[in-house]
């Protein structure tokens, strides 16, 4: 069998987002802009990954910075650091840490989808030769990255991997699958450049970036959907998955 995650749940249980129930209503999120970079990381991240999941080989992370101009809580930006993994046979991005630009978005994302999100400042700028993002928190820059030399690609060339968050529901730790839909209007790819990354600010203390893989940016209509699947974080997902709806 493939390797599994080795996260000791007890080490982070106290800080997990709490959800009252799994009856989250969907959010429609039109005209979103998504900047995504992927980067290989040094071995050793399995201790960050719940035991239900398999690590990607080689281990890698994605940085996803999204601008949502319209949402039920108004415009907001969201930055995520995700450790890429497998839930059984399916690729998934386990959300290690996240920052959102508005307090109402922070509250909703934590309570409704279990994002381990905290407030911060996010900028996302398009230049002629790059698309750059910066995330600041408590006066410090904790992430600065860019897609360099964008070239237009077909929306079909992009693949967005569903996310997984680790939350507490009714007092018990659960993995929540967050599986948005995407209707792409425009897409580009380019070189990935991460000029600053403070792992500790993203619950990713052991993540050491090694080889940049790729970067993409898109404009799309997307959503944050109703929750469909939850998983026991300590049991392989082929046995520990429950369909909610």
């Amino acid at each position, binding site marked *: *069998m*493939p*390797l599994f995650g080795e996260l000791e749940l007890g080490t982070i249980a106290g800080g997990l987002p709490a959800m009252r129930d799994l009856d989250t209503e969907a959010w429609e999120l039109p005209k979103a802009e998504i900047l995504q970079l*992927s980067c*290989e990381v040094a071995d050793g991240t399995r201790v960050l990954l719940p035991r239900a999941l*398999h690590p*990607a*080989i*080689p281990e*890698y992370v994605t940085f996803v910075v999204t601008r949502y101009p319209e949402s039920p809580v108004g415009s907001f930006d969201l930055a995520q650091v995700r450790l*890429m993994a*497998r839930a*059984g*046979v*399916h*690729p998934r991005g386990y959300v290690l840490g996240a920052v959102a630009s508005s307090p109402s978005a922070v509250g909703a994302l934590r309570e409704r989808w279990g994002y381990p999100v905290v407030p911060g400042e996010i900028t996302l700028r398009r230049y002629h030769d790059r698309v750059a993002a910066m995330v600041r928190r408590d006066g410090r820059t904790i992430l600065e990255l860019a897609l360099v030399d964008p070239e237009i*690609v*077909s929306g*079909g*060339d*992009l*693949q967005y*991997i569903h996310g997984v968050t680790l939350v507490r529901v009714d007092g018990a730790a659960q993995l929540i699958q967050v599986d948005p839909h995407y209707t792409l209007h425009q*897409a580009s*790819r380019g070189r990935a450049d991460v000029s600053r990354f403070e792992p500790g600010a993203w619950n990713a203390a052991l993540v050491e970036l090694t*080889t940049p*893989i*790729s970067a*993409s940016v898109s404009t799309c209509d997307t959503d944050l959907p109703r929750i469909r699947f939850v998983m026991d974080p300590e049991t392989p997902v082929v046995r520990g998955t429950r369909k909610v709806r």
Partner: protein
Amino acid sequence: MKFGLFYELSVPRPWTRESERTVYDNALEQVRLADELGFDQVWAVEHHFLEEYSHCPAPELFLTACAMVTKRIRVGFGIVVCVPEFNHPIKIAERTAVLDILSGGRVEVGTGRSATWTELAGFNASPDVTKKSWDEFVRCLPRMWTSEKFEFEGEFWSMPRRTILPKVYQRPHPPMWVAVTSPGTELDAADRGLGSLGLTFGQFAEQDKRIAEYRRRIQLCEPVGEFVNDQVSTVNFLYCHEDDAVALKTGRQMANHFNYLAAQLISVRETYPSKSYPSLGLLPQLRRQATGPDASEQAGEGLCLGGPERITRALKRWEACGVDRVNFLVNTAESIPQAEVLASLRLFAREVMPAFNGGKS
């Protein structure tokens, strides 16, 4: 219809000093038996860094060992990666020629370009140009095998005029194939007059269409070699047992192991947006087979898991689709004990093979 064996050489964790050796030894024993039983071919992949899924980075060595312990069975590269960072084309021509000589003209050469980020990045190869380099390689190989002197100046490699030695034993040269996982690659094979070496477990209706289009297209081909190889080969699982239920249970376990391990790979498309890899190829289908409607008690449509009658029926359907060869994965991650694998091969040869080719192997 001809039958063969197909090897990924998967090695389950925990890895010990002996575990890889056991997998290779078992595979060689299976190949030796398959040769005696009348199987026609054995194929070995070239994969790198794919933990557990495939520990077979040097098919030429494994196939040489196969050739040395057998008399008739053909030995196929399934495939050799035609990307310069992986293999220099001169070395491909030389290695295949040496094996063709050692085996007495039993080599088949499958070509391909790798589909995983894990492998391509491991060799620092760009996914954007693998199809172009593959195209350049397959157009050169036949001339390298057959011309007394060869020189070339291309986008991916060049060489001054030299004699590439030795020459292949088969005349004019070994049959050439293309690995087909993504829909559409069979047409690349057809356009070049190359055999379609299917590596997916596609279902009948889909394969019907793809094979028909391949057959139509290859009529119009400009062959890269000195002859057209218009054969269609496909891959399948094989576990044959007198009791259908036992065979299905054991075979299904093997197939699940394979699908599960395959799904752990990082496909190019998962992480690197590129026109060169327009679809995920093999992986989505394997994921469906592992978790979708096929993952029920029934074997997936067309899988060769069951008693002799059931397997014969499945193969007759493949034959009707136009498949010329079926290559079998007979074990994955050693999930089936070696004695049972050998028994399955014997039963297949005794009860199923006679239903094809007028009873002649």
